[in-house]
């Protein structure tokens, strides 16, 4: 029963992402689509949070370090009741609370105003450290992009977290192998990614980022090792759900024309709009 629900949530999420961004005049569709399963599993079966008390001090924290995929998160927060669903229709428009990158003060449920890459993991490590200092047992999850790992500050935090035994910190990398201009391995390759994080002192596991069951099992298993932060490499497809966007760098920040719209709506099960 639970799995069917999550599958349905994922399908709905992809529809909402596409519709919201197209209506809002622009956004990062493929980067948002690739993390659909990850976010659904986190928000519907892992995170201890309460939409009625978004700032309750003992809550689990999720930080979307790849802030440009904000629309995916907005859709879930709206569905869970953190704010009114009507806000999604105003995305990116004058008077909206929802914009291209998330704002922690105007959007309930958003933990950090990310957008510039390379900040979220460090901020999350600070939050995890505060928990250790205060002997609180909430957990911190940070979702990074793979291109984001080209930012040096990510590695500063990668060194810091194991040093301070932040086993309440879990980083997830949306390893979709693409960035804005091309495939990662044509620009700055991260391989071998598992080895790198392991050598820094993280406990690393890999998963198919579109497999709900495995995602749930892995996320339930954190921390993977006592005294070490956890890293999940989620192998994903950028643009998953829309055939012509899958693995196509050109779609990083681009709106479909009317022909492309028809195809996309068909594939997602959306009424043409």
């Amino acid at each position, binding site marked *: 029963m639970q799995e069917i629900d999550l599958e349905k949530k994922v399908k709905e999420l992809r529809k909402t992402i596409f519709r919201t961004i197209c209506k809002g005049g622009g956004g990062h569709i493929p980067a948002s689509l690739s993390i659909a399963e990850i976010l659904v599993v986190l928000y519907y079966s892992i995170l201890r949070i309460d939409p009625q008390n978004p700032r309750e001090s003992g809550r689990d924290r999720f930080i979307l370090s790849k802030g440009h995929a904000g629309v995916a998160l907005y859709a879930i927060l709206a569905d869970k009741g953190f704010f009114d669903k009507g806000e999604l229709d105003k995305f990116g428009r004058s008077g909206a609370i929802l914009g291209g990158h998330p704002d922690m003060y105007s959007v309930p449920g958003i933990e950090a105003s990310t957008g510039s890459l390379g900040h979220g993991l460090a901020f999350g490590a600070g939050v995890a*450290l505060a928990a250790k200092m205060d002997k609180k047992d909430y957990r911190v999850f940070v979702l990074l992009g793979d291109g984001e790992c080209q930012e040096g500050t990510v590695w500063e935090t990668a060194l810091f977290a194991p*040093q301070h035994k932040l086993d309440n910190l879990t980083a997830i990398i949306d390893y979709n192998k693409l960035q804005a201009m091309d495939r990662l391995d044509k620009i700055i390759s991260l391989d071998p990614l598992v080895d790198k994080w392991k050598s820094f002192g993280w406990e690393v596991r890999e998963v198919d980022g579109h497999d709900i069951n495995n995602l749930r099992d892995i996320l339930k298993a954190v921390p993977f090792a006592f005294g070490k932060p956890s890293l999940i490499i989620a192998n994903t497809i950028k643009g998953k759900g829309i055939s012509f966007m899958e693995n196509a760098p050109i779609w990083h920040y681009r709106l479909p024309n009317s022909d492309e719209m028809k195809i996309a709506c068909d594939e997602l099960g959306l009424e043409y709009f």
Partner: protein
Amino acid sequence: MHDLARENKQILALVADNGAIVYDEYRREFPDRFLNCGISEANMVSIAAGLASCGKIPFAYTIACFITMRAFEQIRDDVCLQKMNVKLVGIGAGFVYSNLGPTHQATEDIALMRALPNMTIFSPADPLEVRKATIAAAQINGPVYLRLATAGTPRIYEKDYEFKVGRGVVLREGSGLAIIATGAILHEVLQAADELKSLGISVRVINIHTLKPMDKEIVLKAAYDTKAILTVEEHTVLGGLGSAVAEVVLENNKVPIKFKRLGLDDTFPAGYGTYEEMKEINRLSKVDIVRAAQSLLEV
């Protein structure tokens, strides 16, 4: 810091692999509230923001140019944009690290920090003022940049005084010329003022210890009461104290006044030597201030 930490358990001291000796006593008493983040200034600032989001009051302390420049984006996005209660402490403002060269000398930091919304900037002139500014910083709920020189700078204040955030201090009264300055260079400015006095020029010396929000009233009063304003800073003349004063006076739209900024004239600090020698080499010594004042009055 020690006293603050005793009073408030949320106070934390963060460093980027610096602070030996200076923090020894603090570390002995509060080992759990001291964090050496290593040579990773950007990480340190983001960590501080994360800690602050959970109610902590982190003081992130390292060399001024490293914290303001290496971590500028983190200060902008993680601290200021998110309005986090983080105190950034920069040591080695101007040329105090006099034989270490320009990479360790902060001469553009005021310009950078001034441009950031939600930021308060303190630039204390002597050890007594450092103490007051630190206490004031802890009482503010929001981002603060504390621009410090180094230990052992000469005393400016002979006796205690009330430190008010955002209010400048008139150190000497006068009506011929106003010299507005900030930080340790005030020692030089006061000597220059004494010499100008002996030459028959009445000099008002104003200490701007809060660069942001700056005391506009004291600046405008100086503009009304005197014939010229000279600003002095161990910093580039582009975007620092001089620019801040010019902005206020010009936008007042009323006061015609002679004006000059004294500081680094769009150059990096040059040379090596003692702090005194550096001030001479970079034309910020007492002699340079006197000359600048005299030529300004002759314009």
